[in-house]
């Protein structure tokens, strides 16, 4: 373990001590696990009857439908947020001042406000003007959730795009202008492809956030995975109580599996990107699930890349 800054390669004494701690640590963890299992058992949560509900076709269909609606919201919101992010990023780099100001204001406002509040406000708005909205009016919760996710994640994606564009060496743009390329040509053939390439891992990590945040639909009673399974558990009674614990464990496992699958894509792309040699470095994918700060995510993304825990210590 010479790769750690905290301790040397252990000698014979330290190895013995580490082995002792390993045994003690294992015992402590096993005790913790045993305690959890004991409590679950004592409260009848491990009864075969409780877990038998997952053999029921109706229960399984319910869970499957919940996963599908969650994925549907995620797909629509994910695509829309990338489109919005691209538009906002380009608008923020515009030379026209009102356009730039509008984009900056939009991004700062929706990044600073908790997503739940945006979603709830949109939902109430849609409910209020239900009759004037046409197709959207039938599906207020769905569109409230999707548009809320889009404006929030679009704002974050815009900052990610912008960081990518800013990371392209200035000489490239100067060279392109010197060759006589137009502004939109510089943007579409030179800046955006490189920005997307270098920021792809971060963008996918932000999509993991989008996926996790679809669960906020629970609050506005949209029947995504969480709401669907909660409603289901409310209607099932096993041994005199609702099987909330078992359902929660299963649903949690599904969420974790979906998010891990998506973030492993990000890590894979990052690793591939690091192999090839171009002027623009590929950002790290290791911060999948937390939003960057309100004020200056664009300045920070390169820093986070430096601080990436999975890289070897320089």
């Amino acid at each position, binding site marked *: 373990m010479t790769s750690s800054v905290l301790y040397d390669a252990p000698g014979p004494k330290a190895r013995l001590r580490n082995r002792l701690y390993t045994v003690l*640590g294992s015992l402590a963890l096993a005790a913790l696990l045993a305690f959890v299992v004991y409590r679950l058992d004592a409260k009848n949560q491990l009864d075969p009857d409780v877990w038998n509900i997952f053999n029921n076709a109706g229960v399984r269909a319910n869970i499957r439908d919940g996963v599908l609606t969650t994925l549907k919201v995620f797909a629509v919101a994910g695509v829309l947020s990338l489109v919005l992010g691209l538009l906002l990023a380009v608008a923020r780099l515009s030379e026209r001042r009102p356009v730039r100001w509008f984009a900056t204001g939009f991004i700062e406002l929706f990044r600073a406000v908790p997503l739940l509040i945006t979603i709830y406000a949109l939902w109430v708005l849609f409910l209020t003007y239900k009759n004037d909205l046409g197709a959207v009016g039938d599906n207020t919760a769905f569109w409230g959730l999707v548009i809320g996710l889009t404006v929030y994640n679009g704002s974050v994606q815009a900052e990610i795009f912008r960081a990518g564009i800013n990371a392209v060496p200035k000489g490239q743009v100067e060279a392109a202008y010197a060759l006589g390329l137009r502004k939109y040509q510089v943007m579409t053939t030179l800046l955006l492809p490189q920005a997307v390439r270098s920021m792809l891992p971060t963008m996918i990590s932000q999509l993991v956030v989008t996926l996790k945040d679809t669960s906020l639909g629970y609050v506005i009673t949209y029947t995504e995975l969480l709401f669907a399974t909660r409603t289901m558990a409310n209607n099932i009674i096993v041994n005199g109580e609702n099987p909330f*614990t078992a359902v929660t464990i299963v649903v949690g496992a599904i969420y974790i599996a979906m998010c891990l699958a998506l973030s492993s894509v990000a890590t894979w792309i990052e690793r591939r990107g690091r192999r090839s040699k171009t002027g623009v470095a590929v950002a790290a994918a290791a911060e999948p699930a937390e939003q960057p700060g309100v004020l200056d995510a664009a300045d920070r993304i390169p820093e986070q890349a430096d601080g990436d825990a999975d890289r070897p210590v320089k």
Partner: protein
Amino acid sequence: MNVLLDHLADFREGFIGTVLLTFASGLLAMVLGVIIAGFRVSPVPPLRMFGTAWVTLFRNTPLTLLFLVAWFVVPVVFVPGLSPWMKALLALSFYTSAFVCEAIRSGINTVPLGQAEAARSLGMSFSQTLRLIVLPQATRTVIPPLSSIFIALTKNSAIAGAFSVTELFGVQKMLSDQGFTITWIFLWVALGYLVITFSISGLFRLLERRLGVAR
């Protein structure tokens, strides 16, 4: 417009609720995060495994699900009779601790290995190396990501309002249920959050400037 002036007491209570919840869970998340980060960099394999499992588990679970666990699983299986505020505190701080842990771990990893090697070759003990060389540098690298994490925590605390804990989102919900115009409530509540998040980032920027180190 008048909705703010007429319900100033509600808004104030919600604002204070958000600040208190954020502060308390931020504190607990820091403590938990530091302990788990210690596990993750320790030379003892089972502790490392525990740390990794903790971070993977909490980073990939939606916070709403954790709130449901705190509300419907924890009281049944572990401790009955927790107040809603305590449950919200537990959900928020366990979730945030995973991010704090990762920030601290990457902070420790950014300290160049040569620094510790130099310290040891000067004859410093382990605790001296840690106290005088590694931690001061790690702390400084960790400040910007921690600021992001606490801002995210402030925003995440809104979910507690949906679970009937008094804070700003709860105020928005209550007032819009009473039929006030959502646009104005939204703007006032948004302003409340902006005040909190700007103060956090300002505070951390100050810290960063005070403690900043050239490397």
